[in-house]
C-alpha cells in the first residue's frame, strides 16, 4: 500500500533567492498528525486556520531540494499552492482509490500541458505570499480553494 505521493504545485514555493520548488512528496497522515498540532500553544482550537499549516508541515516530507519542510515554508506558499496541497491531503487520506488515481492522472496531464519549467529559476519577481489572492494563477486547483477546515463525514462507524 502506498503511503507517499508525489505532488506538483501549480506555481511553486519561491525562496528568498528566487528559487522555485514545485515538486514534493506528501505522506499519509496519522492520528498524531492531526492531534499534536492541537496542543501547539499558538493554536486556539480545531477551527483555527493555522492548524492546516501545522498539519501540512508535518506530512509534506519534501519540497524540491528541501528535505525539512516547516510551517514557515507552508505559510509562504501562494494561495493557489496552499489550496492545492489541502485538496491533495483530502484526496490521498480520505478519497477512494479512484479519487487518488484521478488526482494523480490530472496532475500528470496538467504538467505535460505546461511548458517545461526548470526547478530553479531566479526569474520570478513576484514575492511569495499566502495572501496572493488577487493574482490570476496559471492553473486552478482541482476542487477550488479550501478556506476552512472541514470534518470528514462519518458513515456510522
Amino acid at each position: 500500500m502506498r503511503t507517499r505521493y508525489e505532488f506538483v504545485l501549480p506555481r511553486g514555493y519561491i525562496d528568498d533567492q528566487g528559487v522555485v520548488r514545485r515538486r514534493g512528496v506528501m505522506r499519509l497522515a496519522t492520528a498524531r498528525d492531526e492531534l499534536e498540532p492541537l496542543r501547539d500553544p499558538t493554536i486556539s482550537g480545531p477551527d483555527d486556520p493555522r492548524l492546516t499549516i501545522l498539519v501540512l508541515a508535518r506530512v509534506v516530507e519534501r519540497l524540491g531540494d528541501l528535505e525539512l519542510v516547516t510551517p514557515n515554508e507552508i505559510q509562504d506558499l501562494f494561495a493557489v499552492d496552499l489550496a492545492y496541497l489541502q485538496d491533495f491531503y483530502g484526496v490521498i487520506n480520505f478519497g477512494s482509490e479512484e479519487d487518488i488515481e484521478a488526482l494523480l492522472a490530472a496532475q500528470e496531464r496538467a504538467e505535460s500541458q505546461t511548458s517545461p519549467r526548470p526547478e530553479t529559476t531566479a526569474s520570478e519577481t513576484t514575492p511569495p505570499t499566502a495572501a496572493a489572492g488577487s493574482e490570476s494563477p496559471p492553473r486552478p486547483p482541482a476542487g477550488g480553494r479550501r478556506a476552512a477546515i472541514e470534518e470528514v463525514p462519518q458513515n456510522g462507524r
Partner: protein
Amino acid sequence: MKHYPIDVLWQEVIYLAYHLHWDLDDLLDLEHQDRVRLVQGVAALNARAWEEVRQLS
C-alpha cells in the same frame, strides 16, 4: 481542509486500545485508513463472538 473529527479519532484509538492492548504511540502512528480497517476488523470479530455466544445460550 478535510480533517478527521477529533472525537471520532479518539473513539477509534480508545476502541483499539481496549481490544488490542497496543501502546498509545503505536495507535497514534497508524494512518487513517489502516486505523479504520483495524476498527472494522475488530468490530467484525466482536460481532462473530457475540453471535456464537447467542447460539450457545
